[in-house]
């Protein structure tokens, strides 16, 4: 007990300094919105790293049993595949609305950044899997971005969260279309530009892809309108769009392959000349 008191006497100022800093940072994190967001992101990055390490270790200890069960499952699946190969084409999603024009390549995200001004995603699929540049990338909930560079096993995606990303989008039910750009630093909010101000938009409307780009199919949901205003000196709306997709937590996506894209581009080019 006496020793503890002595420590307080000797290092009191330093301890008080640390205590005050802790109080200050608690105040900062609890009361300022941006600080709280940065703090929780940093914390989740740190803890997910730590959890990954623990997971890896426990996985390693269970490898033997898992290997056994995988081998058995593999054998079962082989049976099914060989029996069904003649009847269905596994790679093609058959959807009558999309007229078989699009097929989807499943992909896992290997690497991504979210918090920078210009973010990039890397997918673990490449030209060997059929990915080409300028293909759209979507997830189950909404759209993700556009493939820009492809190597044999990897491809790079410019996601929505990039200062150069521009997606042609429209309001569901209206024929007006505009550009979806990322001006904010919030990974869930984007801005829809160039919708003329006589368009009857309202808060809560759904934003969908316009289909005017040969990259994304028409009518894929993107997000909802949370706010809109007329920009000063302009006759267009600036619309805040809250994305359906949480790009931060995404790990599996689909690359959209448009089978008729070349035909469309060819035709458009020939009429320009």
């Amino acid at each position: 007990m006496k020793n503890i008191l002595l420590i307080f006497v000797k290092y009191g100022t330093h301890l008080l300094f640390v205590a005050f800093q802790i109080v200050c940072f608690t105040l900062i994190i609890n009361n300022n919105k941006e600080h709280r967001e940065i703090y929780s992101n940093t914390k989740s990055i740190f803890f997910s790293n730590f959890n990954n390490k623990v997971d890896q270790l426990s996985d390693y200890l269970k490898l033997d049993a898992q290997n056994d069960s995988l081998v058995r499952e593999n054998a079962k699946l082989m049976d099914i595949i060989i029996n069904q190969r003649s009847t269905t084409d596994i790679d093609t999603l058959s959807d009558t609305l999309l007229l078989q024009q699009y097929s989807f390549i499943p992909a896992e995200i290997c690497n991504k950044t979210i918090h920078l001004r210009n973010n990039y995603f890397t997918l673990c699929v490449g030209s060997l899997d059929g990915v080409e540049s300028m293909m759209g990338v979507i997830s189950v909930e909404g759209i993700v971005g556009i493939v820009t560079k492809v190597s044999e096993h990897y491809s790079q995606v410019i996601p929505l969260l990039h200062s150069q990303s521009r997606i042609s989008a429209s309001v569901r039910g209206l024929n007006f279309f505009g550009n979806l750009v990322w001006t904010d630093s919030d990974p869930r909010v984007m801005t829809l530009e160039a919708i003329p101000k006589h368009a009857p938009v309202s808060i809560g409307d759904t934003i969908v892809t316009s289909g005017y780009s040969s990259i994304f199919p028409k009518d894929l949901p993107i997000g909802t309108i949370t706010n809109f205003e007329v920009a000063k000196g302009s006759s267009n709306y600036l619309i805040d769009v809250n994305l359906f997709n949480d790009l931060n937590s995404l790990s599996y996506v689909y690359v959209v392959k448009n089978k008729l894209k070349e035909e469309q581009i060819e035709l458009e080019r020939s009429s320009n000349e």
Partner: protein
Amino acid sequence: MNSLLTKSVIRAILLILLQGLVFRRIAFQMGDFAFIHLFIYPVIILLLPIRTPKILQITIAFIVGLSIDVFYNSYGIHASALVFTAYVRDFVIKLLEPYSGYDVDESPTMSKLGFSWFLSFASILFFVHLFFYFSVEAFSFVFFFEIMMNTIFSFIASIIVVMLYQLIFRNNY
């Protein structure tokens, strides 16, 4: 000694009000260039009598910082930076100790210790304070460029104001 206490208290109150009501509203803005903010309240900590116990210095810094935060609506950012400034003040004073030593009952003002001594003293502590403040405000070194720009330009502006303040109130406060 008693007059020194009154002086310190009056100085603290006046500077907090000056910072919160006047300097907070002064913003030099030229288009995108908005990096200049005037900070004068660290002077309260700088000019505490040299002999003040460190625990007291840190406590005063916490209280002053929180009252500035009330004006700025920023809960704890100024307090954190000012507590840090108060924590390093004694090291800086020791570092800059002149040959003849200090008069420990007095405040380290310009009139007592000379222009160049006060300039280096205030420069070190203001730079530390501003850098810490803007780092905590941004809360991530992703924004390092903004932190440095804010620190450097606010530092230049604030130091000029502080030196003018010391020149004008040479003998009194």
